[in-house]
């Protein structure tokens, strides 16, 4: 039962990764690409980690996985912000 649930979560996570990657390649401009990448990755990673946490031996490992997700969430949001800000600045500058 738990195995099925965690497999479903991981598969769903992988789907978001796929969608994000396609978005990165296909979307027209930087902002929409960033949007696709961060949104999909955060959600994809969240689902992936939820799936893995179900497989964890004890609570400590599940907690560590959660911590990883939070750290990446914050880092990718900040990165997206920095990239977008730099892009805006370059546009207004030229």
């Amino acid at each position: 039962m738990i195995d099925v649930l965690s497999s479903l979560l991981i598969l769903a996570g992988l789907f978001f990764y796929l969608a994000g990657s396609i978005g990165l390649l296909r979307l027209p401009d930087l902002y929409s690409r960033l949007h696709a990448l961060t949104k999909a990755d955060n959600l994809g990673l969240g689902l992936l980690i939820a799936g893995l946490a179900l497989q964890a031996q004890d609570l400590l490992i599940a907690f560590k996985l959660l911590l990883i997700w939070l750290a990446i969430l914050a880092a990718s949001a900040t990165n997206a912000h920095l990239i977008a800000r730099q892009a805006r600045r370059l546009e207004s500058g030229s």
Partner: protein
Amino acid sequence: MNALMLLVFDGLLLLGIVSLAWASLASSDDRNSVILFMAFGLVLAVAWGRLMAADVALAEAAIGAGLSGALLLAAVRKRPAQMAAGRANNSHNPDRTGVNMLLQWSVTLLCAALAGTLAWALLDAFSSTPHETLPQAISANLEASGVSNPVTAVLLNFRAYDTLLELAVLLTAVLGILAMGRATAVYQPAGPIFDGLVRWLVPVLILTAGYLLWVGAHAPGGAFQAGATLAAAGVVLHLAGHPRIGLPAGFALRILMAAGVAVFLAVGLSLLVMGRPFLGYPPAWAGALILIIESAAMLAIAATLVLAFVGAFPRSTATRAASRQVREEEAR
């Protein structure tokens, strides 16, 4: 079924690694090349994890991909004026005529021959059963080594002499870098959002470093992974425009740089004076001595890696003017 899936996974992973390496080396733009190289390092870390080398995976992710990547990215970071000037020589146009073509083909052929010979020898080595004498000797002596993680036991006890010289290599590189006296350009102060990240990321990194150092005795981790994580905190601070990067000045900084080699040597020579072999820890103290050496090594590794990234002793007076200059040039 399981074996087949593993085979497919291995194949895809290796395909990814080799193509990333190829793409990085063949890319026409230096910056793309560096970014692809960092991706290569990260995927490599996955491969190390796959091959049951968790210690190496941690070090690769932190040092091989992380810090090397930061160093390389800083090297390709150019001011706008340079970017325009550099574009001409940057775009690598292989000359497809005559001698050059011949050279390219002969070198390629030579490298193919090398790959073939290496593969031939390696397959020959793989055809016999793996040598177990050394791994067996290590597990037989693990009890006396003071730690239960065999990799840490090799690094800090059985082959501690290698690690001492390796710390000397790191120190040498940084002394060479400082002697060149060319700091990397200073970064502008972070905006509120980046600053918010830095504010909690740096403490978390310091905490993680401490954890990695402690856990190294019985699980993957240790001074090098911890030192690299600590150095990452310094790099983040530098990127956020903090001029002092949390490093002390003058004499204290020199002590920090020398700490790894100095403590290692002090322990080794004290044991020698007490009538034991150089670095021959008494089994009862081995765990404690290794922890002392690793703590000093972690601090030294972190300090030297940050200094290697900054490229010079941090100075707070000159930085303001320099950062203003960078900002003006970026605005231009």
